């Protein structure tokens, strides 16, 4: 099996939510999947990464099918093997809950929020894909995100996400993983949703602030990434060199936003004060025009009397 995922950056092995979920899941059961970092999503049957290509059969792009495939490939560590059927049901329930409550907010943060999209997402994907294709791909993904969010407003999405984060935090409690001491596919899913929020620096960080208010979730992400997804030295070095560029980019975006808001505020503030000068000028202009009109039509006659001298 080969797992094709987006390249790594920002201290993450891959920056995309579902790529992270696939990767975390395969690492958790120590499967011998060959990980290929790829930037050619057109190879996959649905035009999206991650994709798992197998020797026989079709390529898999669905998380549940991937978990099934992992279970069948005859490893020593089988994921979700020790769970009771009640726990399994809970697992399904939570994965559905997260997909409908947390995922929209993550999508919104990365793809719909203009500031984040322009500063980070668009730049990252555009610099990893070829020129004409990147325009098409970015537009396609953004449109899809917008359609998925539908008619919900920003506040509704964030409210759902805050509630979901609190629910997750309660569910995790002081445990190491969500179902006791062994990782399950749910842990991979949660890790995929949360890690990009924690690691990718964003100018607009409403969701990140809320997430860092749940210390056990932060600890969970740190644990999973240090145990299962450590980065190699080369990657760390390369990412370190890029970091400065990203920090300056984000600082610039933030200052631009501040500037925009300041000018907006001053623009709002201006009409408040009475435009006295304009009023005076207008009055003068109007008076002059009336006078000229009156003189022209003969309402006022101006006669010049010449003083006769001598």
């Amino acid at each position, binding site marked *: 099996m080969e797992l094709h995922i987006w390249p790594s950056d920002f201290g993450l092995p891959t920056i995309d939510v579902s790529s992270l979920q696939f990767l975390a899941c395969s690492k958790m059961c120590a499967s011998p999947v060959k990980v290929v970092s790829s930037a050619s999503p057109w190879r996959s049957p649905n035009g999206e990464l991650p994709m798992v290509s197998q020797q026989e059969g079709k390529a898999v792009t669905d998380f549940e099918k991937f978990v099934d495939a992992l279970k069948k490939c005859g490893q020593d560590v089988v994921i979700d093997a020790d769970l009771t059927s009640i726990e399994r049901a809970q697992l399904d329930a939570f994965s*559905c809950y997260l997909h409908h409550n947390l995922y929209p907010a993550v999508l919104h943060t990365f793809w719909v929020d203009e500031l984040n999209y322009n500063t980070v997402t668009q730049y990252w994907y555009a610099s990893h894909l070829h020129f004409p294709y990147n325009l098409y791909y970015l537009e396609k993904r953004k449109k899809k995100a917008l359609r998925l969010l*539908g008619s919900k407003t920003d*506040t509704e999405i964030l409210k759902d996400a805050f*509630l979901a984060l609190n*629910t997750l935090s*309660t569910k995790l409690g002081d445990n190491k993983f969500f179902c006791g001491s062994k990782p399950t596919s749910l842990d991979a899913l949660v890790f995929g949703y949360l890690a990009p929020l924690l690691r990718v620096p964003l100018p607009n960080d*409403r969701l990140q*602030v*809320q997430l860092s208010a749940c210390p056990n979730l932060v600890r969970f992400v740190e644990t999973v990434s240090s145990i299962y997804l450590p980065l190699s030295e080369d990657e760390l070095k390369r990412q370190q060199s890029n970091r400065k560029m990203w920090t300056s980019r984000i600082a610039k975006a933030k200052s631009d936003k501040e500037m925009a808001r300041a000018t907006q505020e001053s623009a709002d503030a201006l009409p408040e004060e009475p435009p006295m000068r304009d009023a005076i000028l207008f009055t003068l202009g109007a008076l002059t025009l009336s006078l000229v009109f009156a003189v022209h039509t003969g309402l006022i006659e101006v006669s010049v009397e010449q003083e006769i001298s001598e």
Partner: protein
Amino acid sequence: MSSAGVITQLVTDALSMNAAQDWEDVSLFTPYLNDQALMYDFADCLAVQTFLRMTSLPFNVRQRPNVDFISPDGVVPLLKINKTLITGFNAIVDFVHKKGVTLTSHLSETQVADMRANISMIEHLLTTVEMYILWKHDETYDKVTKLRYGSVYHWPLCSVLPFLKRRQVIEELSDKDWSSKP
């Protein structure tokens, strides 16, 4: 908008719902349950009715043919208290919870978390499956969905509106990657 901005917005929204008002003159608007409502709408209406009976809050059910146009965001059922409109099962449960009436007071936090996950799974998974069957499967659409959905309209509308709705639902399903599932 900063993080503080969102919290302010949330509080304002919550206050504007005016949860402190008296529970009187409450009506629940539903589609015609016997002739018009589709499976998933019927389920939601029934769920809300059951929930309100469980909490023993008084209300009267009013069946109207055009509830999805009465409702501000197209979600049924619709609960009306004085001048406040609340749509959808979750929002109604939330509202009742804000009034201090709750069915989950004996559960621990973890159990509430589990319950929320289960509710969400049932709601989304079953609704999507029912939508798929009702709108995507040709025979069911012709024999059931079209007739029920169009039953309240007169001639030209009774075939045009189901057609439009079908197109919309199929688009929604394909966005959820459900259009191709066998």
